[in-house]
């Protein structure tokens, strides 16, 4: 039982303490650091890798992708991947 409570506590801490925002959910027209992401080679090579800075232009409705800008070049990333890319706002 203690183990279970511990687990719950740890979980609660995580949710309350550290901001865990995905690229999909954060607001547009801001720059973000990539904190963590799914292991996908194509993302790395397009410039979406851990520690990189991306500028989010917008998310598209109806399950559409997120459009980010890297080095002035637009890249669309599907919703389900963008949901798994954890970001932190630059300057925070």
């Amino acid at each position: 039982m203690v183990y279970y409570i511990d687990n719950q506590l740890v979980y609660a801490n995580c949710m309350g303490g550290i901001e865990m925002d995905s690229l999909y959910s954060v607001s547009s027209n801001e720059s973000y650091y990539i904190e963590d992401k799914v292991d996908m080679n194509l993302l790395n090579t397009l410039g979406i890798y851990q520690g990189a800075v991306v500028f989010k232009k917008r998310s598209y409705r109806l399950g559409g992708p997120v459009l980010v800008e890297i080095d002035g070049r637009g890249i669309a990333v599907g919703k389900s991947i963008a949901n798994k890319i954890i970001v932190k706002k630059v300057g925070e």
Partner: protein
Amino acid sequence: MAKCCNVIVDENVYELKNKILLMGNPNVGKSVIFSALTGMHVMSSNYAGTTVSYTKSNIKLEGEEFQIIDVPGTYSLDAVSSAEEVAVSFMQSGARVVVCVLDATNLTRNLNLALALKQFNVPTVYVLNLVDIAKRKGIEIDVDALSKELGGKVIETVAVKGVGLQELKDELVQMTTNKSTLVDGEVFDSNNDIWDESKKISEKCIKKVEHKQTFMDKLGDALIKPFPGILISILVMVLALVIIVFGGKGLRVAVFLPLINNGIVPIIQGFIQGFNLPSLLNNILIGEYGIFIIGLEWPLSLILPYVTLFYFVFTFLEDCGFLPRMSILFDGIMSKMGVQGGSLISLVMGYGCAVPSIIGTRNATTRKERIIISAMVCFAVPCISQSAALIALLSTQALWMGVAMILLSFLILFVVGLVTGKLIKGDIDPIVLEVPNLLIPEKKAYFKKIMIRLKSFLVEAEGPMLLAVVIAAVLKESGLLDAAATLFEPIVSGMLGLPSEAVIFLLLGVIRREMAVAPLLTMALTPLQIFVGAVVSLLYLPCLSVFGVLAKEFDTKVAVYIGVGTFTTAILLGSVIHFIGLLFI
């Protein structure tokens, strides 16, 4: 990511000793440079992944024979996709020279590949392409500094306009005659290290200058915003349809019909009459429905005007960078059909011809998605030849019939997407797509591409078309057609409500899709019969070449499933429309 997409490679090509490899990111202009160096035209477009296989051509430099190879574009050499595996194999097989093509508008990312290539220690010349667009975007690159950083000559080019290509040729001669010295490439541990190094280099070499956003930049941005992007996309598609349908009609009346009736046909008639053949044979060959008359009239005056305009419109949309933007806007809707937005390009291509469209699905990352798109194209996307015949058939009818046809085809598209998505297990990879620069296609390259497409249409269509016409004549004369008409009467007349001689459209439709429509043009049909005929021929079996490509790209099973599926759906839906129609008449 699942590996499904096969790049077919003849292993012997690795053994060649005098290879010059053209390497670079997707959509940086490798194929344009290849065409310019070798005189051999390769299809290139303004989006990633046009070259899904490698292309080889020989050139002579100072008397020595070399093989230039246009390697499929890759972002890295990690060998995770089949294009990357091919790229790595080529590098490992040894080459005399590597031509590394860099996109000046996106230098940092392109340098990643350049640095990765350096690790193979092959003499390299760097081509800095698209410098004109870079200037438009206010990016100036210090070529000498870049050359120093990379340890190889850097040549600025605007490949589509031929700028800088002579210099590249001269450099290739230099490099292949003198043994060039090599700078050892640094080996990087991780993706991040390579990125850091690329950034360092581009910071040293790039000078951003103040620039005003040009009209094209603003339009490029607007096209990718939901508003007005979606509105513009729909307008562009409607405009494209109007240009093709009405323009094609005009072109047919003004140019192609006179050309056939007053030019080609009299010449052939004169030629054949010279042989003084018996009148029956004369009739079969050059009578009103003679093999040569129909065999020329259908492809040249009925189909070609529309094909011509389609390729004018499609090639423009393809090369200006519009389609990938549309893919992004419509990704949400496409995902409801079980595919991602990037596959929209393959679908649109299918309105030209299903064969390149199915081959183009190699860009999709999963087999599941490739099959879904191929099925959608086979079921509900009429190729341009068939569309032309359908336009001719429906243009005699009320406008609503054409509109109903288009809406019905979209509905079928949606249902086929949903059903195949359910039938095939597995997931689809979401979209990850780079937005290319928006640009006006370069005139010379644009017209050349259209000419190549029209030529290959004539070569590929004329033979089977004549064959189909000959088969039709033989069936008619031998009485086999009557036998088939009796045999299939329960289907053709009983279920579809068409005259029994209409069986010929089902027989010929196997050879080419427009032949599933054209015979209906010569029959006296009621509006309901015309609509049923149009729906059946839209859904009906794909042509022989499509079966070939389905079996080759996937397997016979997929080809058979699609064949049985399209045939059954065509007959069933045709019957349903026939019987519902009867209720209202």
